């Protein structure tokens, strides 16, 4: 940049002006060329009938190269401005794309949902707060609020509780890695995949037939009658929550286990010398030390429980009193085409998640990076 700036010191006013115009022209020309190249690539990918292999190759070069080029061009343009301006613009080159994408894909849709939530099913007539009245008075909605509360308390409590217990026990075992790997494994399974697996655990056949469900096979082995687990209110909610615990315990365990390694052994030693029991050490030394980790893990799982959908959708589809907020939203939106109610429920869910998320982020920043 310094090299370029020297040009302005020589020559008359006219040449200076010409130079300035030239520089602006070049600064405009380069982004335009970049845009044309990107556009040409896009059109090629959209309309081309070339063999798949070539299209794939172009897509990679266009995708990866396009991002690199955009960054390079933006950086180049910024660097051509005076230093003090460049310094202020520089951060936007890095953060800008993320902000644009977040605005376009997250912020604007949320605002649109908020807007639609005040309109009727076809988004034609303004209905005021009617959709929110529905969200807080409909019997199925009230049922789903209650169920979501159950998910939060039992799901989060179970996953964090078991995670902590296993982390503590594994910490004291020689086979720590093996245990932790086993517990962590379900994390690799999607919620829908877990739903399909657990359908077989809870499967029901009438008494006298071969039970293909694991749970009913055990129950009948001990001579009891097989149970249709999904129809047993309110326990069926617990049967579903067990799946979340199975999936999320591994996550809680890994994070808590890492925090455990950070508890200084000198303090624990000191506690032991003072004659504290192992339980006392856990309660008075380890837990306070990893408290912020526990909070972070809990809030993360609370958010997952709040927006739980996949498990309910694959297992009971909300029947037998297992409806949750997200499944109600899906039904209103995509089965009943009531965009107003669907949006209102989505907004309620967002509002419920925000405080937890805010608290979670605060914890993250307190710990300075994650």
């Amino acid at each position, binding site marked *: 940049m310094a090299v370029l700036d020297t040009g302005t010191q020589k020559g008359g006013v006219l040449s200076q002006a010409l130079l300035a115009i030239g520089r602006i022209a070049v600064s405009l020309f380069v982004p335009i060329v970049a845009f044309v190249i990107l556009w040409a690539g896009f059109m090629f990918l959209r309309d081309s009938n070339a063999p798949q292999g070539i299209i794939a190759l172009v897509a*990679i070069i266009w995708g990866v190269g396009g991002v690199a080029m955009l960054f390079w061009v933006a950086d180049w343009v910024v660097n051509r401005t005076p230093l003090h301006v460049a310094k202020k613009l520089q951060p936007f080159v890095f953060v800008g794309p993320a902000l644009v994408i977040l605005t376009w894909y997250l912020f604007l849709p949320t605002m649109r949902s908020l807007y639609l939530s005040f309109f009727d099913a076809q988004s034609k007539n303004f209905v005021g707060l009617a959709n929110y009245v529905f969200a807080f008075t409909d019997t199925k909605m009230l049922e789903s609020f209650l169920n979501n509360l159950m998910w939060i308390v039992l799901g989060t409590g179970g996953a964090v509780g078991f995670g902590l217990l296993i982390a503590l026990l594994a910490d004291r075992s020689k086979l720590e890695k093996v245990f932790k790997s086993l517990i962590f494994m379900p994390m690799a399974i999607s919620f829908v995949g877990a739903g399909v697996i657990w359908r077989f655990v809870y499967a029901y056949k*009438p008494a006298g037939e071969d039970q293909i469900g694991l749970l009913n096979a055990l129950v009948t082995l001990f001579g009891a009658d097989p149970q249709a687990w999904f129809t047993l209110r309110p326990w069926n909610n617990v049967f579903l929550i067990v799946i979340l615990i199975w999936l999320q315990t591994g996550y809680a365990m890994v994070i808590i286990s890492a925090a455990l390694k950070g508890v200084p052994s000198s303090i624990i030693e000191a506690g032991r010398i003072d004659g504290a029991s192992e339980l006392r050490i856990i309660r008075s030394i380890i837990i306070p030390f990893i408290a912020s980790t526990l909070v972070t893990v809990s809030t993360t799982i609370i958010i997952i429980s709040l927006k739980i959908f996949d498990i309910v959708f694959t297992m009971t589809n909300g*029947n037998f009193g297992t409806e949750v907020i997200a499944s109600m939203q899906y039904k209103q939106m995509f*089965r009943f085409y009531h965009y107003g109610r669907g949006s209102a429920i989505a907004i309620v869910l967002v509002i419920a998640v925000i405080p937890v998320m805010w608290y979670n982020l605060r914890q993250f920043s307190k710990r300075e990076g994650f």
Partner: protein
Amino acid sequence: MKKVMLVLLIALLIMPSVFAAGQKDTAATGTKTVTVFGAFVDEEQRRFEEAIKPFEERTGIDVVYEGSKDFETLISVRVEGGNPPDIAGLPQPGLMMNFASQGKLVPMWDSLEATIDKNYAPVWKDLGSYNGTPFGVFHRVNAKSFVWYPKKAWARAGYEVPTTWGELVALMDKMVANGHTPWAVGIESGGATGWVGTDWIEDIMLRTAGPDVYDKWVANEIPFNAPEVKEAFEILGDIWLNPKYVYGGTNTILTTSFGDAQRPMFDNPPKAWMHRQGNFITGFFPDTVQANLEEEVGVFPLPAINPEFGIPVLGGGDQFVVFNDRPEVRQFMEFLATWESGESWAKAGGALFPYLNQDLNAYPNEIERSLAEALVNAKVFRFDASDLMPAQVGAGSFWTGIVDWVNGKPLDTMLGDVQRSWPK
């Protein structure tokens, strides 16, 4: 390790573009193309594609069918996104009315309407119309009011086909006295759990209250908790909620998938002796049964309850509607309105067609032939009510109402809840 990661990364990057590229192949050939989007997939898709081959060979027009199990969601997304298929096969008349009211559909042109008038009973044109304007062409349809039974076991036990509701109840009691369980019922169907129950209710409504009351019920001109509706539920409850009458009792009703529900009929000895379901259920029968369908299975229409209304037929079907008006699209629609478009599918089995001039001999067995005959000759035909009601009810509270009621919710409370959910 780094190399492996790089290869994986590249593979991930390539995959979407390969899929995206794959969709474009059809545009490459340069021939005229008609895109059709529908709800049926797999084997049914194959049979549909087979059935439209004569058209493709004759005209040189390439008809590209795409099916999806999430059709109802996707079609709305595509239409709203300004990217509708040329033609869509809509399973629910409500969906057609929705699009028609938004002005998204191309109304039927004169020559097509003339073909429809000639080839179909008037009921099908009415079902494809919105505000008096016809839009939809029905192709494959189904009829639901049938009771299936294991023929050989019935012969051994000496059971005879009942022709009145009284005979049916007497037969059920006779079965119970013999230590047999009359019915096999299952209503589990993923996101659509409950529809089997709504079909039963509709069939009973048509037989006790008649088609006029049925139409009022569909339009909510009588409330959902009207005495006529309650009576239908009570008649169903006499069967379903009596553990002696249904194999496995209410738990089995609630947790058995509709396709598997018929299986106990084909155990030896049968664990259940009758199964009420539409013509498509034959595709779910065990392979050994399907191989000898005529010898293994018998079928009779669900008997009349009130003789005044006779034996109405309840059914449904996909109607094809036009989004993009082009000459080749029109040509294909006119083809769909003729028996020629259904013949090879009828031969392959598993589908009924509404064409008045169809050749009943095309159906592969006596059973499907008799069903097609019953469908074409039915004095009263009514479309599946739950498909006609607003989605909030027809695909919502009616389904869940059935589930809750079978699971122990009091009848009056349930009926009141369904009525309250009706959109105003």
